[in-house]
Protein backbone atom coordinates (compact mmCIF):
# COMPACT_ATOMS: atom_id res chain seq x y z
CA UNK A 1 0.00 0.00 0.00
CA UNK A 2 2.88 2.28 0.80
CA UNK A 3 3.95 2.32 -2.82
CA UNK A 4 0.58 3.47 -3.99
CA UNK A 5 0.29 6.31 -1.50
CA UNK A 6 3.75 7.53 -2.34
CA UNK A 7 3.11 7.43 -6.01
CA UNK A 8 0.00 9.49 -5.57
CA UNK A 9 1.83 12.19 -3.73
CA UNK A 10 4.78 12.29 -6.08
CA UNK A 11 3.05 13.15 -9.28
CA UNK A 12 2.28 9.75 -10.70
CA UNK A 13 5.75 8.78 -11.82
CA UNK A 14 7.20 7.59 -8.54
CA UNK A 15 6.59 3.94 -9.39
CA UNK A 16 8.51 4.29 -12.57
CA UNK A 17 11.41 5.98 -10.83
CA UNK A 18 11.70 3.17 -8.28
CA UNK A 19 11.50 0.67 -11.11
CA UNK A 20 14.31 2.39 -12.93
CA UNK A 21 16.41 2.47 -9.77
CA UNK A 22 15.92 -1.26 -9.25
CA UNK A 23 16.74 -1.86 -12.87
CA UNK A 24 20.03 0.00 -12.86
CA UNK A 25 20.99 -1.54 -9.53
CA UNK A 26 20.47 -4.98 -11.04
CA UNK A 27 22.36 -4.01 -14.17
CA UNK A 28 25.21 -2.64 -12.05
CA UNK A 29 25.51 -5.89 -10.12
CA UNK A 30 25.52 -7.89 -13.33
CA UNK A 31 28.25 -5.81 -14.93
CA UNK A 32 30.44 -4.85 -12.00
CA UNK A 33 30.52 -7.90 -9.76
CA UNK A 34 32.78 -10.77 -10.62
CA UNK A 35 31.11 -13.42 -8.53
CA UNK A 36 28.96 -15.67 -10.68
CA UNK A 37 26.23 -16.25 -8.07
CA UNK A 38 26.04 -12.55 -7.28
CA UNK A 39 25.59 -11.88 -10.96
CA UNK A 40 22.58 -14.17 -11.00
CA UNK A 41 21.08 -12.33 -8.02
CA UNK A 42 21.55 -9.10 -9.93
CA UNK A 43 19.89 -10.61 -12.94
CA UNK A 44 16.93 -11.56 -10.75
CA UNK A 45 16.57 -7.99 -9.49
CA UNK A 46 16.78 -6.73 -13.04
CA UNK A 47 13.99 -9.06 -14.08
CA UNK A 48 11.68 -8.25 -11.18
CA UNK A 49 12.01 -4.58 -11.94
CA UNK A 50 10.74 -5.34 -15.42
CA UNK A 51 7.77 -7.16 -13.89
CA UNK A 52 6.99 -4.02 -11.94
CA UNK A 53 7.26 -1.94 -15.09
CA UNK A 54 4.66 -4.11 -16.75
CA UNK A 55 2.28 -4.43 -13.84
CA UNK A 56 2.28 -0.80 -12.70
CA UNK A 57 0.56 0.70 -15.77
CA UNK A 58 -2.20 -1.90 -15.50
CA UNK A 59 -3.31 -0.79 -12.04
CA UNK A 60 -6.36 1.38 -11.71
CA UNK A 61 -6.94 3.09 -8.38
CA UNK A 62 -10.34 1.98 -7.17
CA UNK A 63 -10.20 -1.16 -9.26
CA UNK A 64 -9.94 -4.65 -7.82
CA UNK A 65 -8.05 -7.76 -8.79
CA UNK A 66 -9.31 -9.19 -12.09
CA UNK A 67 -11.55 -11.84 -10.58
CA UNK A 68 -15.04 -11.21 -11.87
CA UNK A 69 -17.75 -10.55 -9.35
CA UNK A 70 -21.01 -8.73 -9.65
CA UNK A 71 -20.11 -6.46 -6.79
CA UNK A 72 -17.32 -4.72 -8.70
CA UNK A 73 -17.22 -2.73 -11.87
CA UNK A 74 -13.61 -1.62 -12.27
CA UNK A 75 -10.84 -4.17 -12.60
CA UNK A 76 -7.14 -3.83 -13.04
CA UNK A 77 -5.78 -4.85 -16.39
CA UNK A 78 -5.34 -8.65 -16.50
CA UNK A 79 -3.19 -8.88 -19.61
CA UNK A 80 0.12 -7.77 -18.05
CA UNK A 81 -0.50 -10.20 -15.22
CA UNK A 82 -0.70 -13.06 -17.67
CA UNK A 83 2.45 -12.03 -19.49
CA UNK A 84 4.41 -11.52 -16.29
CA UNK A 85 3.32 -14.87 -14.88
CA UNK A 86 4.90 -16.48 -17.88
CA UNK A 87 7.96 -14.28 -17.55
CA UNK A 88 8.46 -15.22 -13.88
CA UNK A 89 8.36 -18.88 -14.75
CA UNK A 90 10.84 -18.39 -17.54
CA UNK A 91 13.01 -16.42 -15.13
CA UNK A 92 13.18 -19.19 -12.56
CA UNK A 93 13.95 -21.72 -15.29
CA UNK A 94 16.90 -19.64 -16.42
CA UNK A 95 18.01 -19.17 -12.84
CA UNK A 96 18.10 -22.92 -12.26
CA UNK A 97 20.13 -23.46 -15.39
CA UNK A 98 22.51 -20.63 -14.53
CA UNK A 99 23.14 -22.08 -11.08
CA UNK A 100 23.75 -25.49 -12.58
CA UNK A 101 26.33 -23.96 -14.89
CA UNK A 102 27.92 -22.16 -11.93
CA UNK A 103 28.28 -25.41 -10.05
CA UNK A 104 29.90 -27.04 -13.04
CA UNK A 105 32.25 -24.07 -13.49
CA UNK A 106 33.24 -24.26 -9.87
CA UNK A 107 34.03 -27.95 -10.25
CA UNK A 108 36.09 -27.34 -13.36
CA UNK A 109 37.97 -24.25 -12.13
CA UNK A 110 37.63 -24.45 -8.36
CA UNK A 111 36.50 -20.84 -8.34
CA UNK A 112 33.42 -18.78 -9.09
CA UNK A 113 35.16 -15.45 -9.52
CA UNK A 114 35.26 -14.24 -13.08
CA UNK A 115 38.77 -12.76 -12.87
CA UNK A 116 40.30 -15.92 -11.46
CA UNK A 117 38.62 -18.01 -14.12
CA UNK A 118 39.96 -15.83 -16.92
CA UNK A 119 43.42 -15.94 -15.34
CA UNK A 120 43.39 -19.71 -15.21
CA UNK A 121 42.27 -19.90 -18.81
CA UNK A 122 45.13 -17.64 -19.85
CA UNK A 123 47.58 -19.82 -17.91
CA UNK A 124 46.24 -22.95 -19.55
CA UNK A 125 46.55 -21.38 -22.97
CA UNK A 126 50.19 -20.48 -22.38
CA UNK A 127 51.07 -23.90 -21.09
Amino acid at each position, binding site marked *: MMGINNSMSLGGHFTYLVTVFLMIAGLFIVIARGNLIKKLVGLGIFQTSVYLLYIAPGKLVGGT*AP*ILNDAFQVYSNPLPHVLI*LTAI*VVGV*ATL*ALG*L*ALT*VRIREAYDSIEEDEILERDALADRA
Partner: protein
Amino acid sequence: MKNDLILRVMAKLLIPFILLFALYVQFHGDFGPGGGFQAGVILAAAVIFYALIYGHADARKVVPEPLVESMMAIGVLIFAGVGVAGLIFGGNFLDYFVLDQNPVLGQHRGIFWVEVGVATTVSGVMLKIFYIFARRGQVDE
Protein backbone atom coordinates in the same frame (compact mmCIF):
# COMPACT_ATOMS: atom_id res chain seq x y z
CA MET B 1 18.39 -32.21 12.17
CA LYS B 2 17.10 -35.67 11.50
CA ASN B 3 16.54 -36.49 15.14
CA ASP B 4 14.93 -33.32 16.32
CA LEU B 5 11.62 -34.42 17.79
CA ILE B 6 9.89 -31.04 17.47
CA LEU B 7 10.81 -30.71 13.81
CA ARG B 8 9.68 -34.20 12.97
CA VAL B 9 6.33 -33.85 14.68
CA MET B 10 5.69 -30.41 13.25
CA ALA B 11 6.60 -31.60 9.79
CA LYS B 12 4.21 -34.48 10.10
CA LEU B 13 1.50 -32.04 11.07
CA LEU B 14 2.26 -29.48 8.40
CA ILE B 15 2.95 -31.53 5.30
CA PRO B 16 -0.60 -32.81 4.80
CA PHE B 17 -1.87 -29.27 5.00
CA ILE B 18 0.70 -28.07 2.49
CA LEU B 19 -0.38 -30.81 0.11
CA LEU B 20 -4.01 -29.95 0.68
CA PHE B 21 -3.25 -26.31 0.03
CA ALA B 22 -1.52 -27.22 -3.21
CA LEU B 23 -4.59 -29.10 -4.36
CA TYR B 24 -6.79 -26.20 -3.33
CA VAL B 25 -4.67 -23.77 -5.31
CA GLN B 26 -4.75 -26.14 -8.26
CA PHE B 27 -8.48 -26.67 -8.46
CA HIS B 28 -9.67 -23.38 -7.08
CA GLY B 29 -7.47 -21.49 -9.52
CA ASP B 30 -10.46 -20.88 -11.76
CA PHE B 31 -12.26 -18.88 -9.11
CA GLY B 32 -9.58 -17.30 -6.99
CA PRO B 33 -5.90 -16.60 -7.42
CA GLY B 34 -3.83 -19.63 -8.22
CA GLY B 35 -3.36 -22.19 -10.91
CA GLY B 36 -1.22 -25.00 -12.13
CA PHE B 37 2.11 -23.32 -11.79
CA GLN B 38 1.70 -22.16 -8.21
CA ALA B 39 0.22 -25.50 -7.23
CA GLY B 40 3.17 -27.31 -8.77
CA VAL B 41 5.63 -25.18 -6.85
CA ILE B 42 3.79 -25.71 -3.56
CA LEU B 43 3.64 -29.45 -4.17
CA ALA B 44 7.36 -29.54 -4.81
CA ALA B 45 7.94 -27.39 -1.73
CA ALA B 46 6.09 -29.91 0.42
CA VAL B 47 8.36 -32.72 -0.73
CA ILE B 48 11.45 -30.54 -0.37
CA PHE B 49 10.36 -29.78 3.19
CA TYR B 50 10.02 -33.49 3.83
CA ALA B 51 13.47 -34.08 2.40
CA LEU B 52 15.01 -31.37 4.58
CA ILE B 53 13.57 -32.81 7.77
CA TYR B 54 13.78 -36.54 7.13
CA GLY B 55 16.76 -36.68 4.81
CA HIS B 56 17.10 -37.12 1.07
CA ALA B 57 17.16 -40.89 1.15
CA ASP B 58 13.71 -41.08 2.73
CA ALA B 59 12.32 -38.50 0.36
CA ARG B 60 13.63 -40.50 -2.58
CA LYS B 61 11.85 -43.53 -1.23
CA VAL B 62 8.56 -41.63 -1.05
CA VAL B 63 8.92 -39.89 -4.39
CA PRO B 64 11.40 -41.92 -6.44
CA GLU B 65 13.55 -40.16 -8.96
CA PRO B 66 12.49 -41.98 -12.13
CA LEU B 67 8.90 -41.02 -11.31
CA VAL B 68 9.92 -37.39 -10.99
CA GLU B 69 11.75 -37.50 -14.27
CA SER B 70 8.80 -38.96 -16.10
CA MET B 71 6.49 -36.42 -14.46
CA MET B 72 8.44 -33.68 -16.21
CA ALA B 73 7.79 -35.24 -19.58
CA ILE B 74 4.22 -36.35 -18.93
CA GLY B 75 3.10 -32.84 -18.00
CA VAL B 76 4.23 -31.42 -21.32
CA LEU B 77 2.64 -34.34 -23.13
CA ILE B 78 -0.69 -33.78 -21.32
CA PHE B 79 -0.66 -30.15 -22.36
CA ALA B 80 0.26 -30.85 -25.95
CA GLY B 81 -2.19 -33.75 -25.90
CA VAL B 82 -5.05 -31.37 -25.08
CA GLY B 83 -3.98 -29.36 -28.10
CA VAL B 84 -3.93 -32.41 -30.33
CA ALA B 85 -7.31 -33.48 -28.94
CA GLY B 86 -8.61 -30.16 -30.22
CA LEU B 87 -7.24 -31.09 -33.64
CA ILE B 88 -8.80 -34.54 -33.57
CA PHE B 89 -12.23 -33.25 -32.67
CA GLY B 90 -12.12 -30.96 -35.65
CA GLY B 91 -10.99 -27.64 -34.26
CA ASN B 92 -7.73 -25.74 -34.38
CA PHE B 93 -4.73 -26.59 -32.23
CA LEU B 94 -5.50 -25.98 -28.50
CA ASP B 95 -9.13 -25.40 -29.42
CA TYR B 96 -11.15 -26.14 -26.29
CA PHE B 97 -14.51 -25.27 -27.80
CA VAL B 98 -14.80 -28.64 -29.48
CA LEU B 99 -13.98 -30.73 -26.40
CA ASP B 100 -17.63 -30.84 -25.38
CA GLN B 101 -21.02 -30.29 -26.99
CA ASN B 102 -21.36 -27.17 -24.94
CA PRO B 103 -18.47 -24.87 -25.94
CA VAL B 104 -18.26 -23.26 -22.51
CA LEU B 105 -18.02 -26.64 -20.82
CA GLY B 106 -15.37 -27.55 -23.37
CA GLN B 107 -13.39 -24.51 -22.30
CA HIS B 108 -13.63 -25.59 -18.67
CA ARG B 109 -12.46 -29.06 -19.53
CA GLY B 110 -9.56 -27.80 -21.60
CA ILE B 111 -8.39 -25.39 -18.93
CA PHE B 112 -8.63 -28.09 -16.27
CA TRP B 113 -6.40 -30.53 -18.13
CA VAL B 114 -3.98 -27.86 -19.17
CA GLU B 115 -3.54 -26.81 -15.56
CA VAL B 116 -2.99 -30.43 -14.56
CA GLY B 117 -0.26 -30.66 -17.18
CA VAL B 118 1.43 -27.49 -15.98
CA ALA B 119 1.35 -28.57 -12.35
CA THR B 120 2.80 -31.99 -13.19
CA THR B 121 5.71 -30.60 -15.15
CA VAL B 122 6.49 -27.81 -12.74
CA SER B 123 6.52 -29.94 -9.61
CA GLY B 124 8.52 -32.61 -11.44
CA VAL B 125 11.16 -30.17 -12.60
CA MET B 126 11.49 -28.37 -9.28
CA LEU B 127 11.88 -31.63 -7.39
CA LYS B 128 14.32 -33.03 -9.89
CA ILE B 129 16.49 -29.94 -9.68
CA PHE B 130 16.42 -30.11 -5.90
CA TYR B 131 17.34 -33.80 -5.88
CA ILE B 132 20.20 -33.23 -8.25
CA PHE B 133 21.65 -30.35 -6.27
CA ALA B 134 21.30 -32.34 -3.06
CA ARG B 135 23.03 -35.38 -4.49
CA ARG B 136 25.89 -33.33 -5.88
CA GLY B 137 26.45 -32.00 -2.40
CA GLN B 138 26.70 -35.47 -0.95
CA VAL B 139 29.30 -36.49 -3.50
CA ASP B 140 31.31 -33.35 -3.00
CA GLU B 141 31.69 -33.34 0.73
